[in-house]
């Protein structure tokens, strides 16, 4: 890994304004803070896992760093340049290097286009001067790389299984040799035996190209497997960041600890012998998040201070984490287990 990050994000926020509500009560616009003050650096060849429950803002964050959703506040620095300073054309060119793979492999492919046309589309956009035969050669080479047969180039998405469609989605994202791909739940709709194939494919592609990845998933087992570092989000805020093994073995945030303890292990003896931290209740509404620490309403160790003061996202005193280990908890140095 070289020293300069491909992507740096500072204090990124995405707020959605909800309008509507009851009639005759005036303008009741309310704000959902989907992402609230997130900072991160991503190195070439690195995979950052984003985990958290539904509504934690992980997908919104993934889209915001690609500017598929325009952030409300904060800075995005791409390859050393603040994207706010780029003109339209320069911004367009950065899109070539920043790609996304979506969750639902069927919904994200145009059913009226052939596989070949789908994979070639980013090439047509960014390398319009390529001759048809050159384009076809690039597409076929990419298909082979992701485990599709080049002779399938004229088939349509409905002729493929979910796993194969996801390979098409990956081929489309990879065709311009991007420096970053955001994978938003890329294996969640696939069967277990197919998930492993896709995870391996992404890792192979990363090894060969040195691209950085942001891997978004609610499946913590897969995230541990593919990521180098993991960021845990709750109600739009970062709770904890550490290397993958530290998140699972020595996390310090009570939310991370509860998440990890809730993941079932495919091992009857271990699974039945575990101490689980059962969180009570459900996620609070993001329209009206709790004061102080957003996690405090479900936190097993919450104290008075947690309702009064927002905990800073600070490094823990001692850690085995490779790279920074930061935790947003007032008791970050007392929660080690």
């Amino acid at each position, binding site marked *: 890994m070289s020293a300069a990050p491909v992507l740096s994000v500072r204090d990124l926020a995405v707020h959605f304004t909800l309008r509507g509500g009851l009639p005759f009560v005036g303008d009741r616009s309310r704000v959902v803070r989907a992402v609230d003050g997130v900072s991160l650096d991503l190195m070439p060849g690195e995979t950052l896992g984003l985990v958290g429950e539904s509504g934690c803002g992980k997908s919104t964050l993934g889209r915001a760093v690609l500017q598929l959703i325009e952030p409300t506040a904060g800075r995005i620095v791409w390859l050393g340049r603040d994207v706010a300073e780029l003109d339209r054309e320069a911004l367009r060119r950065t899109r070539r290097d920043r790609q996304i793979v979506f969750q639902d492999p069927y919904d994200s492919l145009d059913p009226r286009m052939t596989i070949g046309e789908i994979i070639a589309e980013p090439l047509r956009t960014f390398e319009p001067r390529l001759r048809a035969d050159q384009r076809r050669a690039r597409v076929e080479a990419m298909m082979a790389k992701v485990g599709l047969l080049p002779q399938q180039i004229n088939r349509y998405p409905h002729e493929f299984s979910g796993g194969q469609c996801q390979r098409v989605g990956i081929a489309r994202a990879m065709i311009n040799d991007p420096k970053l791909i955001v994978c938003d739940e890329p294996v969640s709709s696939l069967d277990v*035996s197919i998930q492993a194939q896709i*995870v391996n494919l992404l890792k192979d592609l990363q090894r060969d190209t040195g691209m950085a990845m942001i891997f978004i998933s609610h499946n913590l087992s897969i995230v541990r497997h593919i990521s180098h570092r993991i960021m845990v989000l709750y109600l739009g805020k970062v709770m904890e960041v550490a290397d993958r*093994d530290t998140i*699972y073995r020595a996390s310090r945030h009570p939310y991370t600890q509860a*998440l990890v303890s809730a993941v079932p*292990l*495919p091992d009857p003896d271990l699974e039945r012998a575990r101490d689980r931290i059962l969180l009570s209740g459900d996620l609070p509404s993001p329209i009206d998040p709790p004061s102080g620490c957003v996690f405090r309403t479900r936190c097993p160790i919450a104290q008075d201070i947690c309702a009064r003061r927002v905990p800073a996202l600070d490094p823990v005193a001692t850690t085995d984490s490779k790279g920074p280990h930061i935790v947003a908890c007032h008791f970050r140095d007392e929660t080690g287990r």
Partner: protein
Amino acid sequence: MPSIPATAERFAPAASPGRAVLEIRDLSTAFETPDGIVRAVDRVSLDVGAGEALGIVGESGSGKTQLFLSVMGLLAQNGSANGSVRLDGSEILNLPPRSLNRVRGARMAMVFQDPLTSLNPYLTVRRQMTEVLVTHRGMTEVQARRHSVDMLARVQIPRAAERIDLYPHEFSGGMRQRVMLAMALLCRPSLLILDEPTTALDVTVQAQILALVRELRSAHETAIVLISHDLGVIAGTCDRVAVMYAGRIVEQAPVRELFYRPQHPYALGLLRSTPRLDVIGGERLPTVPGQPPDLLRVPPGCPFAPRCSYRFDRCEIEEPLLRPAGDAHRKACHLEKL
């Protein structure tokens, strides 16, 4: 292969449960489609003992849901089932709807993955719960309401007496699944079928629901069938496991046997390719190559053969039938030992 840890407590005696609540014999389910006949369930035989928790594992299209929709008499219009299904000793397969309605909800109940689509959005939870009791138990509305509130409290819905008058959309996903469990348990069924009950839920809520299922099971002595693609969910909750592939049961064993000594190459492949949270990350995952068969064109011989790294000539010609492979362990595989 994973080794067997020393401790074996916390397990109910898994083999040969006493009385069978559910006996499925030679059940086949087929769907007529414009492209041909899809054999979703293919000659399945299976018992569920009283108070037992049986896990059904398989990927999409393996037939695990259709098998139990057949049992419940809930197949789609173009589907038909034949064979035999006995509940508490009496035949229930293909009963006319009137007779089936006396069994469903009363003696067996099914909870589905998405509680929002299985609850009627126009009716309060109270209406949907009391209806069951008035119909099956002949209770008055007042009795039925009291009984329903009790049941909601038992599945840990706070302020049950107030919340029973809410509509389904006013509950969160986890709470809705609790409502479904409460409804399913209202008439104390001898069999409760849970089809991916936690798949749509967040992992912390999943842990709450699974803890509740285990608790209810020991309190009510209800037999449970837990259908899931998540091996972790099965590992923590079930006594026995059946693995399905291409509409057939390919392996069946007590839970520890299946997880620590799988005998079918497909079960082994599933176990190995499942990433584990307790294993250090970064390694390449073993995979099961290829994809599940097209049920319109299941290959002759063993349906798993095209993906199996242990296959030999016989596998492509002769279909392996379920046969003993150890203590209370059965597999459909020609291999002597895996």
